[in-house]
């Protein structure tokens, strides 16, 4: 185990799109990152029994974190995005944690891994702690702090109305008036 008190910096930044696709046979959801210039909505393809169609895309980026003291690199290519809890489900563990930490000005964001077909990929607690450290190292922690938690704390993903920090509709001449729920 490293004795280094890591000081993280963002590296290997790659801008692109997070693409959401749905199978109209099994109703499965797949999410992946692409560096394509302009992923086309409605693109369809067949994979076995599944008929996948791109239903939404959002401009986003991926990155790794590197310790500027020891050079240790932690890859975050499995991080789909960070979501802001809107408090839509009062008995959801995310909202409960947020309410508990609000008095000490610690704000929560929820980290999502990519989804492929019906597999949900969690970001490990080790990496969530690194993300939390990184974003706190980037801020004036005498004012407030951040905490990054895992999406499996969400009570019911299908009911969640959280808001991803993604750029939606940036390729459209008219900004969308409302964002569709992603799940």
């Amino acid at each position, binding site marked *: 185990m490293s004795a280094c008190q890591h000081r993280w910096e*963002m590296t290997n*930044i790659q*801008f692109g799109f997070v693409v959401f696709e749905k199978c109209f046979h099994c109703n499965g959801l797949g999410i992946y990152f692409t560096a394509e210039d302009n992923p086309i909505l409605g693109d369809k393809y067949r994979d076995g029994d599944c008929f996948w169609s791109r239903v939404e895309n959002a*401009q*986003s*980026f991926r*990155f790794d974190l590197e310790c500027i003291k020891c050079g240790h690199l932690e890859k975050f290519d499995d991080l789909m995005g*960070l979501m*802001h809890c809107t408090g839509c489900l009062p008995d959801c563990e995310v909202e409960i944690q947020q309410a508990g930490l609000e008095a000490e*000005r610690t*704000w929560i*964001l929820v980290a999502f891994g990519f989804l492929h077909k019906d597999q949900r990929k969690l970001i490990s607690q080790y990496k969530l702690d690194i993300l939390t450290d990184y*974003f706190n190292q*980037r*801020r*004036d922690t005498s*004012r*407030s702090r*951040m905490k990054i938690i895992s999406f499996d704390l969400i009570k019911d993903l299908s009911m969640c109305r959280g*808001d*991803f*920090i*993604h*750029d939606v509709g*940036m390729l459209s001449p008219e*900004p969308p008036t409302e*964002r569709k729920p992603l799940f």
Partner: protein
Amino acid sequence: MTTKDLIEKLGLKPLSKFEHRDINGVFVSDMLSDVMAGAKSGNIWLTVQTHKSIVPAANLVDVSAIIVTGGKDVPQETIDIASKYNIAILSTNLPTFELVGKLYGLGPLTK
């Protein structure tokens, strides 16, 4: 310079509830991913975006204030979330380019 100084010098309109704080630079972008990757704690962020998701992005990287340019209407929902997170949302009718010019004219923002 502080957010209070900036409001007075440039006639910005505060929309949210917040505590004034020091400013150490300017970041201009309309993309949240850009802000998450590049903005620094204490920067002011100039944008025409008004969707509520600008607030968690600003909070994540600890900007001093979001300045919405071009006289865009900011939804009340966005203002309410900003007040909850103690994030300053300031508004101006100036287009981004003109505001950047005025900010440049103020000289270094830090002593």
